[in-house]
């Protein structure tokens, strides 16, 4: 088993980050073109804890090199199963994902957590990512090691890209939200003007 771990901070509040997180792979993110589809399978608020649990299915374009693709079976898309847990009181989003494709040969389990930053909890959000990668194909330790090593390197390469892409979504989200508020303000003001006149 190999482990990939990293953490970083976003200059946005936890509320903004946790909302934009739902649009992370949408059209505002120009760097996530490998994500073809994101489907919600179920969603419910636990009446006892108030935690929102969501199950999603993420469809990705296969981007592994040919030697791995032919070793593992050669499909052109891969599926990821994700469950997320949002605790609005503790201000914590936890996302757990695992690969559904090639799951007999390779086990990738990732956990990401978004929480308010310790230093400035109202303005910044901490992102922590941890992935455990285990190749399962029997026997050949050398092949297992190569597959695990390749997967860890992919995580490393994607970490910066993932951050950059999410920054695009956060920026756009803030802009659109500000515009909406401005529009609502104008509408409200004009209603007040109308009421004052008549």
């Amino acid at each position, binding site marked *: 088993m190999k482990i990939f771990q990293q953490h970083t901070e976003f200059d946005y509040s936890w509320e903004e980050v946790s909302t934009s997180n739902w649009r992370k792979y949408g059209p505002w993110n120009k760097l996530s073109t490998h994500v073809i589809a994101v489907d919600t399978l179920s969603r419910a608020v636990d009446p006892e804890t108030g935690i929102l649990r969501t199950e999603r299915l993420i469809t990705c374009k296969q981007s592994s090199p040919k030697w791995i693709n032919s070793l593992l079976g050669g499909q052109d898309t891969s599926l990821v199963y994700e469950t997320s847990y949002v605790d*609005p009181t503790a201000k914590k989003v936890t996302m757990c994902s695992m690969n559904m494709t090639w*799951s007999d040969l390779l086990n990738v389990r990732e956990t990401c957590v978004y929480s308010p930053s310790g230093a400035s909890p109202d303005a910044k959000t901490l992102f922590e990512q941890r992935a455990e990668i285990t190749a399962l194909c029997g026997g050949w330790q050398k092949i297992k090691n190569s597959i695990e090593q390749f997967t860890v390197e992919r995580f490393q390469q994607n970490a910066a890209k993932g951050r950059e892409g999410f920054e695009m979504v956060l920026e756009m989200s803030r802009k659109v939200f500000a515009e909406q508020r401005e529009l609502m303000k104008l509408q409200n003001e004009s209603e007040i003007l109308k009421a004052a006149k008549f």
Partner: protein
Amino acid sequence: MSASLAPECNEVKERYDSCFLKWYSEKFLRGTARSDECDPLFKQYEQCLSKALKAKGIDNMLKEAREDNRENDAEHMRPKR
């Protein structure tokens, strides 16, 4: 918003996603969520999606994934205060 893996579900998915996002930011995060007002839209989307998942044989793969995910549920459905 992202597309669905089943193109025929895109339209209803889009409507559900917009409903959810509004509910999430305006009600859920502010602690004023009473009922899930997006549920009727979700049911329509789910009906469309489940057909596609069955046709593609993904429903059986999902059963396995759900089974493997039990420990995550046990760990993260508890509130940490």
